[in-house]
């Protein structure tokens, strides 16, 4: 987040819903914020019981978003916890195709919690570069607790630049896009 202060244009892709605190925080920088709002698609996919028709695919929601400028920063925050390994692989590939080489992906995964809330947690950036967790709801889903190896395997186009254990029971990841990926993927 410190880099955002540089006098250049940033394109930020937020996989979550539009949040007042995030927009307010980013409004002080020269940036464009793309809001993917995958929450409903992620929950629909998790709750799908094999009814008639195809399973909801949250990654498809991202793929169907119009492309313009490639992203410099992608905020996935709590979302990887709510996807299967296959979906994470699909998501990271979709992110890679719509990001600049060297782009960052910021993610949070649960490492100590055995259960997680029904919907992804809500986070808001603070001035000093920290994130505040606004709400998690009642925990009623088994936590996926992906390991670093899991995430590394699911993100072949990225290197893991930084991992940090947080006191909240979450683990912070900073992925970096390794090389250009053909847009046709």
């Amino acid at each position, binding site marked *: 987040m410190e880099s955002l202060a540089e006098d250049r*244009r940033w394109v930020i892709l937020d996989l979550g*819903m*539009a*949040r*007042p605190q995030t*927009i*307010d925080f*980013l*409004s002080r*920088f*020269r*940036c*464009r*914020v*793309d*809001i*993917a*709002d995958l929450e409903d698609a992620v929950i629909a996919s998790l709750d799908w019981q094999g009814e008639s028709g195809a399973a909801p695919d949250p990654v498809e929601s991202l793929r169907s978003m119009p492309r*313009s400028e490639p992203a410099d920063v992608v905020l996935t925050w709590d979302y990887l916890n709510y996807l299967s390994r296959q979906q994470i692989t699909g998501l990271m590939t979709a992110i890679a195709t719509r990001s600049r080489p060297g782009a960052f992906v910021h993610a949070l995964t649960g490492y100590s919690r055995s259960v997680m809330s029904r*919907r992804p947690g*809500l986070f808001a950036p603070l001035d000093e570069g*920290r*994130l*505040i*967790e*606004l*709400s998690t*709801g009642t925990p009623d889903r088994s936590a996926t607790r992906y390991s670093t190896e899991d995430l590394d395997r699911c993100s072949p186009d990225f290197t893991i630049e930084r991992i*940090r254990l*947080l*006191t*909240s029971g*979450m683990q*912070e990841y900073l992925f970096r896009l390794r090389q250009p990926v053909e847009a046709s993927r």
Partner: protein
Amino acid sequence: MFDKKDASRGRPAQGKSSSAADRASTATTPARAGPGSTAVIGRSIKIDGTLSGDEDLRIEGYVSGTIRLPNHCLTIGKEGRVKADVYTKSMMIEGEVSGDLISSESVSIRTTAKISGNILAARVSLEEGAHFKGSIDMDPKSIERALVKREVKRVASDPGGSERAKPATLTNVKSTPTETGAAQQAAGDKKL
């Protein structure tokens, strides 16, 4: 790194809009009361075409096409539905909008708003509970470029300056005299 705070979730029941806005949306607003007033497109009015003008506008009906109010404020009320490219000085959105929204100053997105599209504005504020999918561009240079591009496009499509690129059409006029007055103003004159 993490602080926890008990707060409501992102999509609560609607109901955070200001009392002033509520009063404005329920009041019997004159269609056009004079200089400095706000023209109103009423609930049952549908307009398809290009709207432009030199006063503030509130939309409670349905508008599709293009809206140009470069020096004024547009309010899309709770009942308002807009499917258009919009150019204004400032905008307040409480209803449903689909399209590209460009404001030279600010865009305020209220809790009841549902927006699908792209916003370009120097200042964007969003209330808890608002639905938004698309992009928000707050880069001053982008906004400047978009405004110049819009002006070039406008001049090219309207060299005489009449701003009558496409006549607005009005349908489903079953409204109170107040609303009809606003609709006739909008569709007939098009210059509000």
